[in-house]
């Protein structure tokens, strides 16, 4: 249910220091049009609230089983096995669990309640920090987001958006005037491949890139490509992306994100399987050099190499 009154948020991370400048609060919206095989936030995919099971918290008391309806969960060898497709309410089970091992993966926020959360760390934002809207896909909630970002702007809170751009153009143009910084992905240049690995083609994305890079916010844009072995991490792919954006907007910022082999860590909690399990690895400095060369050679872009200290 996507409305302008409220939005489903699967996490609000305060003191986010890896998502842009300064100390930030990152709001993760639930629901995503893409199904990237390497996605590290699987709970952000569906647009509905879902139960989540955190095994390390579980004290194996069986309270959940007593509160559950038929077909909702099985209690096997002291451990609950959730039926994630159960259509009814999970409230009773979640309430019954004394250890918060079974929780709901998300929460509804209206404009004011979200602003309240954003303001909590106002004092820490100083000159450079602020709020980052991420997901999932934040622009799926464009009407809602626009209102929240208006409030941020009027209160002087710096705003950043992390988007896949796989949304209608009007969603982008609705929020664009209120963005101080935009991070947009181009994962694969070839549409067929894009469809194969993310579930959708990239025509819409590239069309939005053209809008973005010809808008007055073009200087606030960073285009990013996550480097996934055997999928996006291919010099041809990188060269073509860099060439494309460099022509559209000379001097555009382009960032290559090294692969993180731990991306599959959260799948089990949501009852999902990570299809790239064991297939991810971090690229060496030399390999990264090569990708960077492919991006920079002959292209009019400003390359941002991922900061070394961080583990993305």
């Amino acid at each position, binding site marked *: 249910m996507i409305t302008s009154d409220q939005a489903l948020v699967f996490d609000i*991370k305060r003191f986010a220091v890896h998502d842009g400048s300064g100390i930030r609060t990152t709001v993760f919206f639930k629901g995503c049009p893409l199904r990237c095989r390497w996605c590290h936030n699987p709970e952000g995919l569906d647009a509905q609230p879902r139960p989540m099971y955190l095994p390390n918290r579980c004290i194996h*008391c069986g309270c959940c089983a007593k509160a559950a309806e038929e077909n909702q969960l099985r209690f096997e060898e002291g451990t609950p096995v959730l039926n994630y497709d159960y259509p009814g309410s999970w409230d009773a089970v979640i309430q019954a669990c*004394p250890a918060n091992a079974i929780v709901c993966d998300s929460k509804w926020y209206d404009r004011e309640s979200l602003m309240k959360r954003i303001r909590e760390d106002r004092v*820490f934002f100083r000159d450079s920090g602020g709020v980052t809207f991420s997901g999932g896909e934040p622009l799926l909630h464009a009407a809602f987001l626009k209102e929240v970002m208006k409030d941020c702007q009027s209160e002087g809170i710096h705003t950043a958006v992390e988007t896949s751009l796989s949304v209608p153009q009007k969603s982008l143009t609705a929020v664009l005037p209120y963005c101080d910084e935009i991070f947009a992905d181009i994962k694969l240049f070839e549409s067929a491949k894009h469809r194969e690995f993310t579930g959708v083609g990239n025509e819409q994305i590239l069309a939005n890139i053209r809008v973005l890079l010809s808008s007055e916010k073009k200087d606030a844009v960073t285009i990013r490509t996550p480097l996934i072995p055997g999928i996006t991490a291919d010099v041809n792919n990188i060269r073509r992306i860099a060439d494309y954006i460099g022509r559209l907007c000379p001097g555009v910022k382009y960032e290559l994100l090294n692969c993180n082999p731990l991306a599959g860590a959260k799948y089990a909690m949501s009852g999902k399987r990570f299809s790239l399990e064991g297939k991810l690895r971090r690229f060496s400095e030399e390999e990264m050099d090569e990708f960077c060369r492919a991006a920079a050679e002959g292209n009019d872009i400003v390359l941002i190499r991922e900061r070394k200290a961080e583990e993305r």
Partner: protein
Amino acid sequence: MNERIEHLKQHMLEEERFASIEQARIITRVYQENESRSIAKKRALSLKASLEEMEITIDPEELIVGNRTKGVRAGVVFPESGCSWIDREFEDLPTRPQDRFQVRGEDIEEFRKNIYPYWKERSMEEGIRREYGEEIRKISRVVKINQTDHAQGHICPDVETWLKKGPAVLRQEAKTHLYLAKGEEREFYECMILVLDGAISFMHRYANMADRMSADYPEHASTLREIAYNCRDLAHRPAQNFREALQSLWFLFVILHMESNASSFSPGRMDRYLYPYYQEDIKRGELTREDALELLECLWLKFNQIVYLRNRNSAKYFAGFPIGFNIAIGGVDDNGEDTCNEVSMLCLQAQEELGLPQPNLSVRLNRNTSHELLQKAIQVVSKGSGMPQFFNDEAIIHSMQEELGVTEKDARNYAIVGCVELTTSGNCLGWSDAAMFNLCKALELALNHGRDEITGEHLCPDFGGLDTYETFEELEEALRKVIDLFMDQMIKAEEVVEKAHQDYLPTAFLSSVVKDCMDRGIDVTKGGAHYNFSGIQIIQAANLADSLEALKKLVYETHEIDRKLLLEALRNDFRGYEVLQARLLNKAPKYGNDIAEVDSLAAKYAEYFRSRLAGYTNYRGGKYHTGMYTVSAHVPMGENVGASPDGRNAGTPLADGGMSPSYGRDLAGPTAVLKSVSRLPEELTTNGGLLNMKFLPEFFASEEGRQKFEDFLRAFVDLKIPHIQFNVVRREDLENAKLHPEQYRSLTVRVAGYTAYFVELDGKLQDEIIERTGYDHI
């Protein structure tokens, strides 16, 4: 760190640490020879004798000389304040769990034969025990009364005046006062003259030794001769340059420790009073920045050569020999303008290079603290020594003025003593470690009909129990009754203890360097200082708030938990009630997560305690006030508290720090912790507050990370939190977190494109993260 410093550091750390009875022998002899004289006179004569007779030594490479014993880091047996524990624990010193010392068999024998028998009935400790021991014991499970067997310390002497006058001028002033003095005052000045004579002799002895050694160590002859000149000059005139100022300062602190054997005398705002000497020497071309750093590092090593011998139990409360040479750099000047100079930066550099436990380096922050000082301080923090710690002018100055009636000028010139205790500079006896009041134990008694859950003993009248309170308000009322009762008894005990210090431990030398004592002719223990406070610590707001919130919400609001059942669970330390315990832990909000409802409960009871305490006047006529810090006392204090409604098991530690949330219960990140702590009004911590935080080393790895850290600290200033200190998470911490997840629930790590709670990760993942956490990239 140059070669000289490297050598000196190595010598110091290699030397074995012994318990020393040398001064005890001298003191005992002087007391025996002067039986007919007053205690004040005996004390002064025995300090003078110690200064004249104690063996001394100089390392030929030293630039700053002086120590209170021949060996470095010796544990000095000090009989006047109390030594019954030494009699009991002497043999265990080399093997006890915390803060060990080697002992010599012949010392034990001499102590038992000649020293202890004399003091057994004459020490302060014994005096207090005779007069009030039983009463102090009776309340001890709720209130720990401190300073019953040692001198108080925790004083920032007037170093500036000492540097400008030195012992000879102070002695002259005392003589002038003596000329006009009458009665008791006469003895005060006579004693002062005696100890200053001792100080002068002490300096001469070092001069003579350095002279003698210059012949034996030709390669060090020139520096030894310079030491000799300096020491001789300082004996009769004030310090005239940077090097002399440091030497003079060190003599002051050595002698203070020889007189009192107390924990913590603070150099205070060293960058301010040393800067004129530094500036002048640089201007005249007599000193380079490198020279100054070397000299400061020599002094830094000296700060590590005096440790404090505590008894086994006290070592548990204050582990790791904290002696509290606390230096406060930065902060505002008399006009409220930020002050930071080259000496401030050198202090940080010395700390960074040496990485030793002393001095306890503090940086005072305010809205206008310079980017340079802050970034340098952050760089030192990133080395992981936990220093410097940060204090907040914006919180402290105002509350000192408002709550304690300190003048604006004195409040702006505050310094730190001990660990985090606040004081004015050079004119205050703050008695900051008067007592620790365990509010969590008070709650236990209120829930349990006055009965101690651990011993079964009845410690106070039965005001009711969780099974009888029909409403949360009834419970709160009983809690207040328990607090009131023990508070009144605490005050009575405090008066006995403070009086005992006046009777047994008058301190003439200290009185010569604490403002107003000389002019008023009153010893500092008797209230001669300009300011006279007594500080009581509130233990422990986090656990109390979490417990009350769980009771309020789960028992009295939603009725999810039955009162009688909970009482049963608490009495059984949750054995057989694990589900209920999990519910208490997880289903009620906890302090430290930026949730106003529970944070305000912490503030409410701390404030109740503070305002009631403010109604009392201490034995020296000054104010009582509160602090929120525990050092390491949250462990023994916790051992003494049964299972609590916050889901904490019996005997386990309380929250650490003093303002910090309970272990692993702050799940909303460091900004939320700061917001919660900021809900404790500043006036609760005029005696000092303590907030501990942990950060991963990767955070400090990049310039961007360090800039974000600066943003964090500037927000800390705006939030008016009095204190914060940082530990850098090490590999060992993560390994520990794997083994004891319950203590590390709030530890977050960057996993992939997101941050997660470390303890909730799969074991293999945890291993990978442990693998990548190191200091390589710093």
